[in-house]
């Protein structure tokens, strides 16, 4: 059952209970205008900072997060991005029974980020995505490299990938790392089919995430006058 528009497209789908989306940081909203839809699969590649920034606002507002099989994340960095460490659990070595562990976590934890093993069976991928959909949880497969390496998580609704970091504040033997300019691309299915791209400060100066506002190009007025 659904409310349809005149042209037959669905306006409101009543067959599925729609849970409110998880909130995201305002700097990320150009990429995901609707926030993180519950029950969806969002794959992240290229940057741990991007993953932390993505789940930080939801975590701060009461969502539980679990990181499964990821490299050792610094608790301080997680706190810097705004995660609530009291609602964060880390499973560093899920081992062979990672599907069971992730399945159990999806039952109760709002966001489960995982580093899938190199060869994930398509059946497992489908089952976990279905579990997330049923439980209104969000599954976040994470890939360390850029997405060019191949699509290891085919069932993702939205794919976020980070490319080309540029650090500022550091020189040849002076200064220090202050902030990084990073371009993030969101692509996927459904409403995310049109790929969006945005440049962010990730991390911004002093930690966290910020919107990158490019300085207007310098115009040479003397040349025009002459």
């Amino acid at each position, binding site marked *: 059952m659904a409310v349809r528009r005149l042209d037959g497209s669905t306006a409101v789908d009543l067959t599925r209970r729609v849970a409110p989306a998880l909130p995201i940081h305002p700097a990320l909203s150009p990429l995901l205008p609707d926030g993180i839809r519950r029950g969806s699969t969002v794959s992240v590649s290229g940057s741990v900072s991007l993953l932390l920034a993505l789940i930080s606002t939801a975590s701060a507002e009461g969502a539980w997060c679990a990181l499964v099989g990821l490299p050792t994340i610094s608790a*301080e960095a997680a706190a810097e991005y705004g995660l609530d460490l009291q*609602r964060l659990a880390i499973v560093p070595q899920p081992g062979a029974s990672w599907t069971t562990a992730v399945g*159990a976590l999806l039952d109760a934890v709002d966001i489960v980020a995982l580093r899938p093993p190199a060869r994930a069976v398509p059946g497992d991928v489908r089952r976990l995505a279905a579990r997330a959909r049923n439980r209104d949880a969000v599954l976040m497969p994470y890939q360390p490299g850029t997405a060019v390496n191949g699509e290891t998580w085919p069932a993702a609704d939205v794919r976020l990938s980070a490319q080309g970091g540029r650090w500022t504040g550091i020189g040849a033997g002076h200064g220090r790392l202050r902030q990084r300019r990073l371009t993030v691309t969101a692509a996927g299915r459904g409403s995310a089919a049109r790929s969006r791209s945005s440049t962010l400060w990730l991390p911004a100066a002093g930690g966290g995430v910020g919107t990158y506002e490019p300085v207007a190009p310098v115009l040479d007025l003397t040349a025009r006058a002459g």
Partner: protein
Amino acid sequence: MAVWCPDWPVTAARLSADLSVDAELPTAVITANRVIACSHAARVAGVRRGLRRREAQARCPNLAVFPRDELAEARTFEPVVLALESVAPAVEVTRPGLAAIGVRGPTRYFGSETGVLHALSRAVADLATSTTDVLIGIADGAFAAELAARRGLVIPHGGSPQFLADLPVNTLDPSGNSPLIGLLRRLGLRTLGAFAELPARDVLARFGPEGAWAHRQAGGRDDRPVAARRPPVEFTATLDLEPPVDRVDTVAFSARSLAERFIGDLAGHGLACTCLELQAQSENGEETVRRWRHAGVLGPVDVLDRIRWQLEGWLGGTARPTGGVARLRLVPIETVPTGAHQQALWGGSGAEDERAHRALARVQTLLGHGSVLVPVVQGGRGPGQRTRLTPWGDDPEPIRPPDQPWPGRIPAPVPTVLIDPPRPIQVLDDDGRPVRVTDRGAVPMPPAQFGFEDGSTTIAITSWAGPWPVDERWWDPASARHVARFQLVDVQGRAYLVSCEMGAGNGPRWQLEACYD
């Protein structure tokens, strides 16, 4: 009647450390750098409860210091309780080192209170632990009996209020942490007698259930608790272990939910437990039954501690069962009404949190203890030192306080991925020679590339910053570290935090500590 073994933590520490030294050696047990118990010899030398360790050692230089081990205390107290049980049934263990016995029944059996005393002292004297001093006191009410035992007195029936009246009010809580004691003192109630004279109703209205309980104790009336009643049987919580378990920590792990259910059920009816009976049964039918009384209100953690203590004594003692533990039963013996459902009031745990806790516990049982970790930020200078991961269920306490300044640490933004343990690398200059940091903290040749020890990959460096030297714990050769940290950025825009060991004799030793991913 109360049986009190003075300085029980000291005795337990001696017994478990298997000290063959004589009892004259001054001994102290410390927790969190404070003395919590000391032997008589140490007390003579000026050591007191609450002293810092340094101060205690200064007053008594040959002081032997032990950390506190509550499990060992419970384990070593077990023989004493067994000896008491051979004389009188229904021994209530208040805490390791202090037990209470209802004296009316044994008095009738032995003919007089003196007969009971003789029988008890004989039973305790038979113990192998001859170092154990035991003091016995008789009075109305467990609290008065405890104080009588500390002085080795027998208070006649009805004499407890007079005995208590002149004692200072902080006898109610010797640890001095109770806010009630401070409040009573500020109100001018300096003795137990003055406190006991207040009308019970007003005390309950002003100080709540805990205050009412303290009021009854002060008046020597805690043998017949006014509000206590034998609760209906449905509050009894039972846990069947299938298959039977013979390890204490495994039982304690499974019993966590039992303890929470037990306390939660009582709290749901506006009750809190002050004394509980813990029954454990092995697969071959052996049983251990013990009553545990608590000075305040028992919480789930307290219940769990007592389960652990009792099983530790049972499974590790002489009367060890032949099989694993198959069943646990918690029976509330004494309850007091609480003002509110405490867990909801203070814990703030909603249904969401409960569900997440259960799921994490389930994953932990699936993958083993230590597989689910909880991060916490702690103090330190290196990025690896600032993150502490504790197993789920343990108390996530930082070892070093994170809010101190920690000069020399890397400022924000902090690296996201820690390399644990740090990987050895080689940092080379333009000509392929190792980059070194001089003793004065200068870098003669700037780093141009780095690679891992095996020489498989070489990464070109475009920008770098440093060195930032840190000279940590130089007073302790075992943990001293003198390193200089650098930030490196490679051609692909990835940033790394590396450190170089300084003062090392054979060439510079570089390590990759963390990545800014």
